[in-house]
């Protein structure tokens, strides 16, 4: 009986909701002109794609033979310089580089300083997020969890927008994290307990915390 009345109300709500932010006709031509102009201003599409995925594209085996030879020579030179700089044989060139492979760095390639810094920042961020979500999951979440989630969300989005983020797995992880953080950041204070339970269920289904832990080579980071 109750279900029936709920169904009826849902149907009425659905019907009434059709008027919610009812979209006008799509300004197709105008939008296309804007998109074309913006893309033209940003340079040719192929250059932009190189910008987005520089390493994968550059190191594809389909590259021209002359380019491959040149890349090989460059790699050998880089290796020679790196070997020359090693004072104690057998030690890594850069000690903080340990997290890089987890975040999709290209094997056999030394990450540029900026990229390395960003990888470290990503690891640290994932560690903070993991700690935050663990506390949330164990029910020890602080009262200020909404602002904390908002801070983490901002960093997540900054990392997602970075052109240096070339690893699909890390991107997917950050996107999943973004979705969870959005839900926490917009929690309704009245229904918080129920909503938190629901968010925890969602996290469990996507194995988010496990994936975060797997992406952190040195274990969870310290809290913010």
């Amino acid at each position: 009986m109750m279900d029936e009345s709920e169904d009826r109300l849902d149907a009425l709500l659905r019907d009434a909701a059709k008027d919610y932010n009812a979209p006008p006709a799509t300004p197709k031509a105008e939008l296309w002109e804007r998109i074309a102009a913006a893309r033209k201003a940003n340079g040719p599409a192929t250059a932009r794609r190189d910008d987005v995925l520089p390493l994968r594209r550059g190191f594809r085996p389909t590259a021209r033979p002359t380019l491959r030879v040149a890349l090989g020579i460059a790699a050998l030179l880089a290796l020679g310089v790196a070997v020359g700089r090693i004072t104690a044989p057998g030690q890594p060139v850069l000690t903080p580089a340990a997290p890089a492979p987890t975040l999709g760095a290209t094997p056999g390639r030394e990450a540029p300083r900026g990229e390395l810094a960003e990888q470290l920042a990503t690891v640290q961020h994932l560690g903070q997020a993991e700690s935050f979500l663990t506390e949330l999951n164990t029910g020890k979440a602080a009262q200020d969890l909404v602002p904390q989630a908002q801070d983490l969300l901002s960093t997540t989005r900054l990392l997602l927008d970075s052109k240096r983020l070339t690893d699909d797995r890390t991107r997917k992880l950050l996107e999943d994290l973004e979705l969870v953080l959005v839900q926490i950041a917009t929690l309704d204070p009245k229904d918080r307990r129920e909503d938190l339970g629901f968010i925890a269920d969602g996290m469990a289904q996507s194995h988010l915390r496990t994936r975060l832990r797997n992406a952190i080579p040195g274990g969870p980071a310290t809290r913010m």
Partner: protein
Amino acid sequence: MDQNNLVARVLQGDPQAERELYDANVDRVYRLVYRMVGDGELASDYTQDTFIRAFERLASFRGEAALSTWITSIAISVVYNGQRKVRRLRSREVELEHAEPVAVSGRQADPDLKLKLSAAIDALPEGYRTVFLMHDVEGYTHEEIGAALGIQDGTSKAQLSRARAKLRRQLAAYAGDLAS
């Protein structure tokens, strides 16, 4: 049109293919974005940004989901990011606005039922609201929503159920009006 073929042509720099990809998806993107933001200017900005990003990142599209779903996921990300910035700007301008959407209190005072419903939808948590708009208003399937939001189908169903429950609760007093 085979989507893999279309993607390959776009990646080869075929302008006709770019336009085909745009034409095939722009209505769906614009409608959803407009539903989410309710503002023509913002909807145009976000739609534009969605396609610019889609063209930039098309090389990373692996065909695991439908191209339209992949583009929808970009659109949702663009809207979330953009709305965050909009809210940040608004919160600087209007200190009173913290957790509650700015329009809610004004709409609550309005006797019109549709405005009540709009206010109730505005007040839904962002994730619930997105799922509700995608499923109940724009007709996406749970499978499409799950793929676009990166969540399980079951999570999408559960979020929709929670969203509806919240709306029912908010509008319980008006249930009679709705039925009439």
